[in-house]
């Protein structure tokens, strides 16, 4: 349900950027969302449709790039995907892992006209 607050932020970031460039309309918003954030794309699209209704972002397409969870072993330095949340290094058995990606939550670009 935190998608509502998140979508409000997406819309205001996009509107601000578009206004600064004197855009008439926002056609597309590209997002980067890490797997770990538990943010559901479909919910964002749903809230976005409602929130953007009377703005220049109405009808804009939301394109989401999902970023998988990647961890780095502090011992051997190997980076690998860990979408199963198994953070133990298969090589050295070290428990702690540095989370390299999967927590992203940002607007990467917008398309305007």
């Amino acid at each position, binding site marked *: *349900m*935190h998608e*509502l*607050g*998140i979508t409000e*932020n*997406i819309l*205001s*970031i*996009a509107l601000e*950027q*578009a206004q600064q*460039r004197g855009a008439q309309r926002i056609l597309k918003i590209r*997002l980067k969302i890490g797997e*770990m*954030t*538990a*943010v559901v794309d479909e919910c964002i699209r749903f809230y976005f449709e409602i929130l953007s209704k009377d703005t220049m972002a109405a009808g804009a397409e939301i394109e989401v790039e999902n970023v998988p969870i990647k961890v780095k072993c502090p011992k051997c330095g190997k980076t690998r995907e860990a979408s199963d*949340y*198994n*953070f*133990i290094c298969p090589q050295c058995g070290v*428990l*702690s*892992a540095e*989370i390299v990606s999967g927590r992203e*939550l*940002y*607007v*990467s*670009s*917008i*398309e*305007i*006209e």
Partner: protein
Amino acid sequence: MEIKVLQKILEANEAIARENARLFKDKGVFVINIMSSPGAGKTSFILRTLEKLKNDFKVAVIEGDIASKVDAEKIREQGAPAVQINTGGACHLDANMIKNALNLLNLDDIDLLIIENVGNLVCPAEFNLGEDLKLMILSTPEGDDKPLKYPQMFTLCSVLVLNKIDLLNQTNFNVQKVRESATKLNANLQIFEVSCTTGQGINTWVTWLKNKFLVTR
């Protein structure tokens, strides 16, 4: 025309959280953000902690709930200042709600500020408040599969409190299994086993907290 933005979606919240953190540091206030599912025992845990700390420390509480004032009233009965935030539907507290609530507290007169987040194991994880410590409570009747189901929360918190440990023999909750699965997600997690009903384990937790407070401050 495509425009590169590269802006964090929650940057507005992060900026206010940093502001809050600076203020807390200036005033020497240690801040704990407590998160759990509804009914895990956040308020009872705060009351137990207050009971042990209130003679040595000045503690205040911010209570976050979707509606009602019942939790803040329970805290005030214990003699601690409490501010109730009603989120009116929002499933988590954000940094701005905390900033506004601070207008109702005198930070010069507080050593420790405890924030009780809205009962929810997903959403509060994304919203930093400016706290020093993120703590989560998991109670035994909820089941021992929670680290597998809500991994994000376990990776973000530095303290895990296993509450209702007195009910252990009435549930199939396996403490060892939780310790293992939680530690796999977060090797530095501090784990405490407590019962807010019997008081078991509360002293161990409070002693740890006092040390943490003294070191940080």
